[in-house]
């Protein structure tokens, strides 16, 4: 890609990333949430990868790290779900934190945490699917 595309992507991708974080954090107040925000973040990463080309990054290393990130995120989701079982009255998936005032940023108990974890997990998963599809280079039959 040309230098114009690369520079523009640098500018845009950062903003898209920030927007993704905004969508995730405000998931319990405005439309959007963990899934939407996670996919937006993955989109910004994919944008950078497309602009700079697959060879720009040392991709093989990146792949393993992303697997661990998303596994950790998912296991954190399960941990919170199970911690309801410990903190609450033996109920799996209990919303055990205080609810706060509706409309405030810090409210809704564990929901923002779920949003953040699911957002991380979705972003990592989609990015890794994309990466593994572009890394894959098997010789086609002649």
């Amino acid at each position, binding site marked *: 890609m040309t230098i114009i595309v690369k520079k523009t992507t640098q500018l845009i991708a950062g903003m898209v990333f920030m927007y993704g974080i905004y969508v995730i954090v405000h998931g319990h107040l405005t439309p959007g949430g963990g899934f939407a925000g996670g996919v937006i973040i993955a989109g910004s990463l994919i944008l950078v990868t497309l602009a700079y080309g697959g060879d720009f990054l040392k991709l093989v290393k990146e792949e393993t790290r992303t697997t661990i990130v998303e596994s950790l995120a998912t296991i954190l989701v399960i941990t919170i779900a199970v911690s309801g079982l410990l903190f609450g009255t033996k109920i799996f998936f209990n919303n055990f934190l205080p609810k706060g005032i*509706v409309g405030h940023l810090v409210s809704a108990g564990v929901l923002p945490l779920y949003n953040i974890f699911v957002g991380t997990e979705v972003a990592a998963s989609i990015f890794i699917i994309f990466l593994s599809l572009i890394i894959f280079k098997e010789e*086609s*039959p002649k």
Partner: protein
Amino acid sequence: MIAYVMCFILFLVGLYGVITRRNLVKIAVSLSIMEISTFLFFALIGFIDGGVAPIVDPADPARVYVDPLPQALVLTAIVIGLATTAMLMTIIIRLYRKYGTFDIREIKNLRG
């Protein structure tokens, strides 16, 4: 009723594609279309006349909201659909690299 019928026709177009097409990518596209029509169907079920998007405004308690449950189901189903599409495309790219074609008739076991 007409919206539901149109939505079901979209589903059937996808079904027709799966039955008749002989190309791996076309089959994936047809499945994708079936998926889209299913999401539309759920969204149609949840709609209520005069309803607003399900975001609570504490200042206005008398609002009518559309049904949030089908929307939650579609949210779940969209991501599942993405997962299945990714799997299908992976298999397709693998088969293409092995055989050099997307045509089912030239791939040994898929002819039937």
